[in-house]
């Protein structure tokens, strides 16, 4: 824990932070609204007292109530990991500004968060699905997406992959027998 770093964050980002700066083990955590993400990240990256040059991770989180985008940063000015949580994104249309102007390497991580959670990163010029097929409709890591054993409750129910190589389970058994020429 780095109490001096906590004080610096509190002074610099007074009025922007949602709630107090949280510290545990070697992590410092701040929460900001989605509208402030760009300004806060640019300040953390550019200002000589912070100098967060490393973007360690970008990921989405679905709390079941709201969506979050979580950034982890590293800087040589502090011994802590800095976790910035963009909190309170609506689950119907989660939107947050993209970090690609600062870190072009965030492009794929944002694509992944879009693919898994449906979070729109405004300004990312290549925001398309990265793992799931292009005609896939659901967002698998959302909390209302259930695993296949109870897929009937899921928005993904009935959605099939483009390149599915086997027939559905309830198909006529004669169809599911695989031959040398495929199913």
């Amino acid at each position, binding site marked *: 824990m780095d109490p001096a770093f906590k004080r610096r964050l509190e002074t610099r980002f007074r009025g922007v932070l949602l709630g107090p700066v949280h510290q*545990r*083990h*070697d*992590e410092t*955590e701040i929460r900001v609204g989605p509208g402030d993400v760009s300004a806060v990240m640019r300040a953390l990256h550019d200002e000589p007292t912070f100098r967060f*040059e*490393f*973007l*360690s*991770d970008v*990921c989405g*989180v*679905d709390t079941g109530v709201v969506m979050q985008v*979580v950034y*982890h940063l*590293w800087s*040589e000015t502090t*011994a802590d*990991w800095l*976790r910035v949580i963009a909190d309170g994104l609506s689950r119907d249309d989660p939107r947050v500004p993209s970090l690609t102007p*600062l*870190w*072009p*390497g*965030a*492009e*794929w*991580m944002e694509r*992944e968060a879009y693919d*898994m959670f449906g979070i729109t990163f405004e300004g990312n*010029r*290549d*925001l*398309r*699905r*990265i*793992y*799931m*097929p*292009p*005609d896939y409709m659901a967002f*698998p*890591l959302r909390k209302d*997406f259930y*695993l296949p054993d109870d897929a009937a409750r899921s928005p993904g129910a009935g959605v099939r992959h*483009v*390149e599915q*190589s086997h027939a559905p389970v309830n198909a006529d058994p004669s169809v599911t027998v695989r031959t*040398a*020429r*495929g199913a």
Partner: protein
Amino acid sequence: MVTHSRQPSADDPRVLLDQEIGVFEPVPPYPPRTEREAEFYTLGDGEMFVNMGPQHPSTHGVLRIVLKLNGEQVVDLDPVLGYLHRGVEKICENSDYHHIVNQLDPLEYISSLFMEWPYVQAAEKLLDLEVPRRAEYIRVLSGELNRIASHALFMGWFALDLGGLTPILWSFIERDEIVEMLGALTGARMLFNYFRIGGVNGDLNHEFMSRLGSWMSRAATQIEANTKLLNENEIFVRRARGLGRMDREMALRMCVTGPNLRATGVPFDVRRAHPYSIYPELDFDVPTRTEGDSLARYLLRVDEVKQSLRIIDQCLHQMPDGPIMARIPRLIRPRPGRAYGAVESPRGQYTMYMISDGTDQPFRLRIHDPSFVHLGSVGRLVPGNLVADTMAIMASLDPVMGGVDK
């Protein structure tokens, strides 16, 4: 197997081929979704698409790359991922804390221990758990062995992608010694499932120690001999020098970590920059290079192997006695909270972000794989080079597709 927009005639000889092995049309059969996709799939004058993969011998896994070529020169490329996507993060959200270690192994099938490590680290942070020192030493010892095995394989692969067949045969000798050794320690040669929340699964045994002892006595000279094969090979050096050059600024902006970042001159190593386990007590250097090209990335890994040997030597001399597991319950229910674990793997920085909601399953487990990020920078390194250099540049970044697709 594959859906096509193209309707071939019945007497087209390619029909049979299509049905049996599947032929991928480079241009997707749907309208572009983003401006970047539209730009990429528009051919300029004299340009053409070539599809590489998903089952291509040198893509290091199941990866498809669509290349846009002008003659033999790559103009642009578009990696298509997802062929290995299993939704591990979702599976982990639905497994209990002890089971997850097993799910994580196949993500990093070259050096599995480094995928288990950030996970147990994050879980131990959530539980405020003190890990016995002997367990930490065993983790470092086995981890560094695994790092050498991974780097040895990298050297062979990289040479193979540059057209040299011999080094991979040599590097497999080294690697095989180490995986057999780790097999004696953990019970498995590749997917170890060895680290536990609070310690490790088994103590050092006689077979492991005797294998390690005999290997350590000749490891340094043998690795020296293997690398001599390449380091002084004029064809290799001239080919790799200047290939896929990345400067410091670009590496930082592309979120590159690990040897690929250190090859550009940034001395960032999680073991030193954000110390964990017993690394603060160990004496080793963080080698860096400034060229940032493929040759530098290769040579840097050679240097890292030497440092790993130093670490192993110190571990063996300082290994304390004591328990190898902390006392932890069978069913883990951490208090609600968030934790972040990060380790330095042979590929870069593996990190995991874990959220607990107080139940026996994590609410969210984010797995961050450096291979994924490095592959994202291939699109900036390759254009301007020849087709044959595409794979060489990719190999020099050393991605593992299991973690890229998760």
